[in-house]
Every structure is written in structure tokens, then in C-alpha cells.
């Protein structure tokens, strides 16, 4: 039945293309919705007040304040802090798993690490609020452990599996000739890792970090529970913070649809979207460059 086979081919093609177009349409739809709702904010709040005002207080006693600067800084601090913790730990474990660990050890550790990714962030938040934050308060002599530092650790733990498993995959997929030729030239194992493997895998490792960064920026629940959520501009790592995601999650519950506060929260969402978009865009460029450099 050649005719029938043709129809089947066409049908499957149609099905697949519809699927991918649907995905595209959903993404465009989300962006348009976010944009249209968020942009209305600026008919009532000037962009300068919104982006440069450092006080956010829509339910103030007096005049409401609509500056998101301290929220943006909160997000940046917790993202930066979590990456400072997760990058060295993540890359080191990836190198250990792919180059040093015996196969048996790798087979046990890798699934365990991937299981961390499966822990719901609320659970990590609970551990943070009940166990980690009192501990941090004690160690550093603070009155309260609900601050940027504690949230960085919690988010760092969440980001870790992403960075480890992608970096490890990239390192493992490097051709064996790289290792053999390095060793043949008299390099030690450490020299081989440092001077051949890591540079060759850089693009993949950067991609892993960028994915982790995206997760850190967007993380909500775990952060909300341990960040302290103060509105004040954070000055140090031991100050409480109120990242954009936490702010949206907290306040969306009380807003009436269509009110200025509602639209302003969507505007924050739009800022968040643009931030992650830029991160992804930059990582794409980096990966592109690296791929061209190390074509094998």
C-alpha cells in the first residue's frame, strides 16, 4: 500500500510541525500577555520611578512607592551568591566524576546528585528556615539567619545538580584522543585536566553555569522562605533581601485583577523575563564561539 504509506508520512510530518509551532505560539503568547499587562504600568508610574526608585511599598501607610531597584539587587545578590557556591563545587565534582572516580563510585554518586534536583524547593526552604538559618545566626553571631547568605546556600544547592550533571556529560563526551595525546606528551593527570580537558569542555561548562544561573534567577519558594523579605536596600550578604520572584509570589495573592498593583507585578515579571532572556542570549553567543574554536 504505497499510497497509504505516503499519507502516513504526511500525517506524521503535520503532527510534528504542529507540535513545534504550538510550543512557539505558547512562548509568544506568554510574552505578549506579559508585555501588554506589564507595559500598562507605565501609564501611571514613570519608568524612572519604577527602575531607579529604591523603595517598593504599594500598600504604604501614605503614598505608595513603586521602585524596584532593591528587588532587582536582591535577585542579583542571591544569584551571584548561589553561583559562587555552586560553580567551584559543581565543576570540581564533575571533574572528579568523569576523570578520577572509579566507574562503580560514579554509578552510585551520579544518580544521588541527580536526585537532589528532584527535591521540591519548599522542602529545601523548610530545612533552611528550621535548621540552616538558626545555625548561620549562631556561627556568625547574627540576630537572625534569614538573609541573603542563607538563601544563597539554599539556591546554590538547587543549582548544583544542573551544573554537575551537564558539566560531567560534556567532559565524558570529549574524545579519548585528547586524554591519550596529553598523557603521551608527558602531562600529569592534573595537567591533562587543567590544560586540555577543561578548556575543551569550556563551552559546555559555560552552558551548564548559564542554565544554573537561569534557575537561580527564577527560583521562588526556597528563597521566599529564608530571605527575610525586607524592603530595605541590602548592603551586605547578611542583610535580608526581597528578590523579584519572592515579591511577585507574595503580593499576587492580594491584588485585584486589573489594578495598578496587579499590572506592576506583571511589569516585574517582564523585567525578570528580559533578564533571563539576556542571560540565555549571552550564553548562546559564548557557546557558538567556543564551538567554532574547538571543532573536532
Amino acid at each position, binding site marked *: 500500500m504505497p499510497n497509504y504509506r505516503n499519507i502516513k508520512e504526511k500525517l506524521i510530518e503535520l503532527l510534528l510541525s504542529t507540535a513545534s509551532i504550538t510550543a512557539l505560539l505558547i512562548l509568544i503568547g506568554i510574552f505578549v500577555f506579559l508585555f501588554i499587562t506589564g507595559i500598562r504600568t507605565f501609564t501611571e508610574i514613570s519608568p524612572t520611578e519604577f527602575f531607579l526608585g529604591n523603595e517598593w511599598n504599594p500598600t504604604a501607610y501614605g503614598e505608595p512607592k513603586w521602585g524596584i531597584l532593591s528587588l532587582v539587587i536582591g535577585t542579583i545578590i542571591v544569584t551571584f551568591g548561589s553561583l559562587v557556591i555552586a560553580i567551584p563545587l559543581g565543576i570540581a565534582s564533575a571533574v572528579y566524576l568523569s576523570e578520577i572516580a572509579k566507574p562503580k563510585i560514579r554509578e552510585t554518586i551520579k544518580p544521588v546528585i541527580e536526585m537532589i534536583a528532584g527535591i521540591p524547593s519548599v522542602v529545601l526552604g523548610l530545612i533552611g528556615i528550621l535548621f540552616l538559618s538558626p545555625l548561620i545566626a549562631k556561627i556568625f553571631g547574627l540576630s537572625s539567619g534569614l538573609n541573603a547568605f542563607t538563601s544563597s546556600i539554599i539556591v546554590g544547592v538547587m543549582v548544583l545538580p544542573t551544573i554537575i550533571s551537564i558539566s560531567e556529560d560534556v567532559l565524558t563526551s570529549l574524545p579519548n584522543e585528547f586524554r591519550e595525546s596529553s598523557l603521551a606528551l608527558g602531562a600529569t593527570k592534573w595537567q591533562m585536566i587543567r590544560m586540555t580537558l577543561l578548556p575543551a569542555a569550556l563551552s559546555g561548562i559555560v552552558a551548564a553555569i548559564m542554565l544554573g544561573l537561569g534557575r537561580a534567577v527564577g527560583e521562588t519558594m526556597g528563597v521566599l522562605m529564608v530571605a527575610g523579605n*525586607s524592603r530595605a536596600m541590602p548592603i551586605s550578604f547578611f542583610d535580608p533581601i526581597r528578590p523579584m520572584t519572592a515579591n511577585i509570589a507574595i503580593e499576587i*495573592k492580594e491584588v*485585584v485583577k486589573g489594578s495598578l498593583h496587579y499590572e506592576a507585578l506583571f511589569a516585574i515579571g517582564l523585567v525578570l523575563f528580559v533578564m533571563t532572556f539576556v542571560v540565555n542570549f549571552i550564553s548562546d553567543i559564548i557557546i557558538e564561539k567556543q564551538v567554532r574554536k574547538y571543532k573536532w
Partner: protein
Amino acid sequence: MRYIYLIAVLFLVVVSVGCINQSRITGEVIKNIEDIEIKGSDTLLQLVSNSAEAYSEVNPTARISVTGGGSGGGIAALINGEIDIADASRPIKEKELKQAEERGIKPWEFIIARDMLSVTVNENNPISKLTVEQVSSIYKGEITNWKEVGGKDQKITLYGRQSTSGTYVFFMEEIVKGDYSAKMRNMEGNQAILDAVKQDQTGIGYVGIGYIVDEKGNHVSGIKIIKIAKDEDSVYVSPLEESKHSEYPLSRPLFQYLAKKPVKDSPIYNFLIFELSNEGQQIVKKSGFVPITADDMKYNEELLDKI
């Protein structure tokens, strides 16, 4: 190929039978079960859940769902037309009334219990009494060290609720009478504030009385409840002294807002009457809160007479 057709036909048959069944079942459900959706104040959450549970025992067909999320969240959901009753630990705001009216909703306000909002510190803090003005200055961030109110030389750490909370708004408008210090840590609920104050020697927080008193009237350990006076010349009253409740400056009514005028003998009406009955007020007491006063009852009855 024939099999595929067969399967497709079978599938269609099963699905359509399922649909018919489904609609018949849901039809019956709507007839018998009295659904009431309640949402709002976290302060009221435990109390209203207890009332709903007791009411369901007497009326097995009643299905009442009670969720928290803050008074602001409850009132917003009421305005958005998502729920039947909003719990609130603060009166509805002018702005919210206007938004409700624009959407054709005229909320009905009933007082179902009273709260003695309690200011608490860590048990190791030597401070035991404050005036309303001192509490206000502390929360505005004007007083930042405990020694300024006669305590140790320690910085004060402020704990408060999120802006979605009715307690946050009530405390801001009635006690602080100004903006909270931006350094205040915003916690997710009454319990989170209590836990933080228990761990923090320098902390101060405010919670509904139901969260510090257990069924036997003992207050939870690890914290100290501050006596409050209206001004320096007034007596300092603890929220735990039942005989002096009328003098306590942080006494407040706890409300339920109905989305519309309730129909007599409708599930919502019956549940409301139950909450206001002697039995209902006993549950209020058991949950750690304070029964409504005679004046509150008079206010409620005047409204009920209009139904």
C-alpha cells in the same frame, strides 16, 4: 488496520459513556452537597477551620473549604468572584469596596470573633511592658536599640507579616500610624513570626492571640507577651487578662465578608448563624480567641434582621 478502527470505535464508546456517567454523577452532587468556599486571614484560619469541622459533623452534607493566604488575598478573591466568604482580620478598605462595586459585588460584613493582637519578644528579653507610642516608634524604625526603652544594649530586629496580611494592615493603621521600617523582616504567617522570635534574642513580633494560647489557656514557651498601655498614664494590660480585655489597646474585631446578601436558610446563612451561636463562640474560645462582645452581637443582629 481493522484493529485500529475497532480500538478507535471502542475508545469513543468508552469516552462517551464516561461523559454521560460523569454528568449524571455531578448532577447529583450539586443537588445534595452544600459547597462553601472560604478564604482569607491566616489569623482566622485555624478558628474557621475548627468551626467548619464542627458544623460538618452536625450537617454531613455541608462541604466547606477553608484556606488562608491573608486577609488581602481573601478580599481580593471575594472581589474577583472566586469565593463565597472572605475571612479578614481588618475592615475592608474604601478602595476595595469601590473595586467590589465596580464588579457588582456588595460585601456583607459580620463580626465573628475578637482578637487581642499580642506583641511578643524573646523570653530572655528583660522588657515586659511598652506603650503604644513606643511600639509605634520601634516599628517605624525610630527606636532601633532595646536600651532606648529600658532594655539591654542590643539592636532591635523587627518581625512583621506580609502586606497581604490583615494583621499587617491593622497594626500599621491602628498602632504604627505610619510606614513600617523597611528593615522589618516580612514573615509568611503568625507561626513563622513566633518561631523567629523564639530564636532571636533581639526580636519583636506581633501575632493573633490564638497563636500564643493553647486550649488550656497556657501560653507557648520561648516567648514573652508584652503588656501594653495606651499612653504613659494608663495601666499596662496583658492580652491574657480576661477581665481587662476592654482596656487592651490592640483589641480588634475579626470579620467575615459575604459576597452578597445571604438567602435565609441557605448553606452560607446557616453556617454564619452557627458561628455566631453559643456553640460557635465556644469554638472561638477553644481556638484561643475571644468571643464577640454584646455590642458586636447587636451589630450582627441588626444586619441579620435585614435578611
